[in-house]
């Protein structure tokens, strides 16, 4: 029943004419995007086209200032909400470069997160985290390490996915989940993404290379291409193959943009 998935349900995320600056430089120059409940969207584009800025702006990064436009999520405007309120509403971002937090143990951090977001008591949260971590190749003792400190690229991305599995957001934004990741980690990450999607999570996946898309079913997502701060093309998932083959430059030339 792909079809019903594809059409999606109610609109979950609506981005209207979003104009964003960072350090007084305009990066997003009027982005429009609609993601329906349960849908899977991929955003591609060359370096510097604004993909990561879009992801971080939706998550509420303080570095990015929304100068114009709106972000509406689940029926209410979230353009100016702090990041912690956004995740409470159901938006979670898995970062391209997850930050190291010295001295903060993964397990204690995630226990507090689950308590905060879902009201799970700390002992139950502990068991749940250990259980879910196995699928992402983390042993119990790994969870007593400090958040991302000394982690390889693959470990960092797997830890981001673990957080997604635990938090169960309505919308998961994945910023370059395939960059800096070994082949084995990439396959476990893509399996988890599919699993989350099948369980009803909407996905917004940002990728430069499309490497991860080889592990995903192209009929399950649609793809948008960004150029110079705008979404310039929106197509079905199969279009990825053409991008891979020709490269962004040639495609832009063909359609005359």
């Amino acid at each position, binding site marked *: 029943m792909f079809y019903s998935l594809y059409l999606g349900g109610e609109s979950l995320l609506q981005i209207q004419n979003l104009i964003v600056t960072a350090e007084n430089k305009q990066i997003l120059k009027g982005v429009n995007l609609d993601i329906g409940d349960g849908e899977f969207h991929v955003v591609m584009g060359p370096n510097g086209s604004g993909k990561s800025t879009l992801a971080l702006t939706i*998550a*509420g*990064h*303080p*570095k990015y200032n929304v100068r114009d436009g709106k972000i509406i999520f689940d029926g209410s405007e979230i353009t100016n909400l*702090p*990041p*912690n309120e*956004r*995740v*409470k509403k159901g938006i*979670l*971002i898995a*970062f391209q470069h*997850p*930050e*190291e*937090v*010295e*001295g*903060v*143990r993964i397990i204690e*951090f995630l226990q*507090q*997160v689950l308590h*905060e*977001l879902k009201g799970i008591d700390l002992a139950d949260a502990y068991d749940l985290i250990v259980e879910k971590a196995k699928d992402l190749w983390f042993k119990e003792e790994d969870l007593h390490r*400090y*958040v991302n400190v000394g982690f390889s690229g693959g470990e960092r991305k797997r830890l981001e996915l673990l*957080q997604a599995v635990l*938090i169960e957001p309505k919308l998961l934004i994945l910023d370059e989940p395939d960059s800096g990741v070994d082949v084995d980690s990439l396959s476990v990450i893509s399996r988890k993404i599919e699993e989350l999607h099948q369980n009803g999570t909407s996905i917004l996946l940002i990728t430069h290379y499309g490497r991860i898309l080889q592990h995903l079913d192209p009929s399950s997502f649609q793809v948008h291409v960004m150029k110079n701060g705008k979404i310039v093309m929106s197509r079905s998932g199969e279009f990825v193959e053409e991008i891979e083959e020709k490269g962004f430059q040639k495609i832009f030339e063909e359609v005359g943009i």
Partner: protein
Amino acid sequence: MNTIEIGEAKEIIAQEIENLAERNKEPEWMTRIRYKGLEAFEKAPHSDPVISIDQLLHFIAKPETAGIPEIKSLEDLPPEMKALLDRLGISEVEQRYIAGLAVQTDTSIIYNQFLKEWEKKGLIVLPMEEAVRRYPDIIKRHFLKMFSPYESKMAAYHTAVWNGGIFLYVKEGLKVPFPLHLFFLIQESSLAQAPHIIIIAEKNTEFHLIEGCTSPVLVRHSLHLDMTEAYLHENANAKLTVLQNWPEYVHTRPMTRARIGKGANFLNTTVTLGSGKSNIANPKYWVSEKGYVELNGIILGQKDFYVDLGGEMYLQGKNAAGINASKAVIMDESTVITRGIIYAQAPKSKGHISCDALLMSDTARMETYPGLVSQVDDAELSHEAAIGKIKEEELFYLMSRGLDEEKATQLIVKGFLDPMLKDIPTEFLVEIRKIIELAVSGGM
């Protein structure tokens, strides 16, 4: 504040010496040491950056002393203190016979039955006054051997009016399997609490002493002048953890010195959490062949707290090693200064100074002056320092997982200190974390 002359202060000190000598039924040799302190008081330099000479004289001249109810057992403790012990789980721990506990108030020490039993195995924990009477030969050989009353007026004043403190003796080969707790309370205003602590760890011993300094009654301008002399013999393995949580009006001048014998280890951790007025310390360590000393300072500076930490290490034996590390969280208008010095005086000795600070406000201030002095060819000396604010990216990472700014900040601050909070018993860690959380919330 009425100004008083040094002559008047000397008279008051002399009277106090007589009172202490009589109260403690002290042998004459000890009273003579006190008078040496009095003699030195006038000539010794006064170089305290916070307490002026007038203020010091004022502390000394407090005219009347209020009666302190006599405290003989844990049951007689003031309710605040009992509540604190309960919070720390001490009473419970004690009941389970895994910890020794000695509590000192302004004038007396309470210690429990449990420790008396360990005395038979060679562990002596005694109030210093009692140790002076019972073990005069040992005390004579170790009392005030690492300090001179002529060093400073504070050292001279301590020598003259020292009161309280403990004598800890660990017999050769004895490994004490539980941490020993010692608490200080200041109950009386304007009185110098000046405990003297002597630690002797014979060969191949092991112990962990925890000093919890607190002041359940808010008193104005109290002065805490403790002096610790630690003698660690060959292969002794010692830990000294000092927890300081003073209220706003307490000035502390902890004076700690230690001789670390051949192959001995000394881990000295000091956690300073309160909003006391000032804390100026310059511990000194002399390290023999293959000896090792680690000085860990954890500081949470609040309000206008002024902390100045020295720390001199003399690596005197081949392969001696020392680390002087500090982590400071500096809030409000507080100032933290660190100035550790390591002298490498023997071949293959190794020393390292590190200083990390997290500045929580624009008016918080940190200064660090590491000193490395190599007096031999093949010593290894190094230092590193990092002073900064909480990174926006770190805060955003935690907030993007649902924690509000306050909780995320608390987590980062606790995390910043965490790597240094090793070897601290869990019940204290819980308390320390709680204090940090409250301080961070209060500062936001």
